[in-house]
């Protein structure tokens, strides 16, 4: 049962990912990425990490994809300019990625199934993650707010051309 869902979700993830690369329209590529990210979120559920799964949906499939689509609309890349030509860099990329693929496949084929480890039912739950976040990792949590603040300033500073009274 578990295995069936694993393959189902992997199929969703992979087919989404293939479409991202293969689709000629950039906007459709971005949409396929949502499908792929949704599949990854489902895989996180299978890994008993519901919190990460929710975040994956909320932040990646939700918020960050909005940003992707905005960038595509901002830059408006015309589809016909994306001519596929094999360059040296592309060739190198193909070589490296196929090398990686071979290694991964060999590794997976020769993989011994590890012993199943019993984990508590609320492992990876929101409650557990929160417990860690607000005890051990309290300082990084607080400091993250500064990181977000710097990002806010950065967005405003770099986009300031558009602000009222900004330089054009």
């Amino acid at each position, binding site marked *: 049962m*578990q295995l069936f869902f694993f393959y189902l979700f992997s199929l969703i993830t992979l087919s989404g990912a293939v479409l991202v690369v293969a689709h000629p329209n950039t*906007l459709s590529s971005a949409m396929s990425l949502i499908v792929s990210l949704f599949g990854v979120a489902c895989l996180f*559920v299978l890994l*008993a990490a519901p*919190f990460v799964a929710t*975040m994956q949906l*909320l*932040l990646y499939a*939700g*918020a*960050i994809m*909005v*940003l992707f689509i*905005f*960038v*595509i*609309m*901002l*830059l*408006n890349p015309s589809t016909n300019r994306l001519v596929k030509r094999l360059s040296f860099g592309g060739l190198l990329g193909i070589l490296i990625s196929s090398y990686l693929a071979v290694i991964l496949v060999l590794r997976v084929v020769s993989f011994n199934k590890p012993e199943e480890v019993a984990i508590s039912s609320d492992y990876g739950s*929101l*409650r557990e*993650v*929160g*417990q860690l*976040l*607000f005890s051990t990792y*309290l300082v990084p*949590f*607080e400091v*993250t*707010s*500064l990181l*977000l*603040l710097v*990002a*806010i*300033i950065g*967005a*405003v500073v770099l*986009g*300031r*051309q*558009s*602000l*009222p*009274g900004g330089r054009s």
Partner: protein
Amino acid sequence: MQEYGKILLLFTFGGLFVASFLLLSNFLGVKRFTREKHLPYECGIDSSPNLLNRFSVKFYLVAILFILFDVEVVFLYPWAILYKDFVLRGDGLFMLLEMLVFLSTLVVGLVYIYGKRALDW
């Protein structure tokens, strides 16, 4: 893992519902295509050939600010769920202060955005 069964059920039935209605209307609907029906407008100027016109960078600013505050809200979920536990353990006030510190840093960001009129058009 059991509770996900319901979600899965929801997705399955939702998908089936959409698919069946699409198919139904495809088979039962009456279709008569005329030239006018294929035009985007029946009168007036023809629409620009390029569907994707460039957007103003302002949209992007709004989007990225939305994401940053979205990330902030994510941190509120576990806190809100756990807050009762903290109170029972006697850490309630401390945790409240912690969250206030976190939020006030970002409120400063909000004040900054308002002061810079970054969300005005």
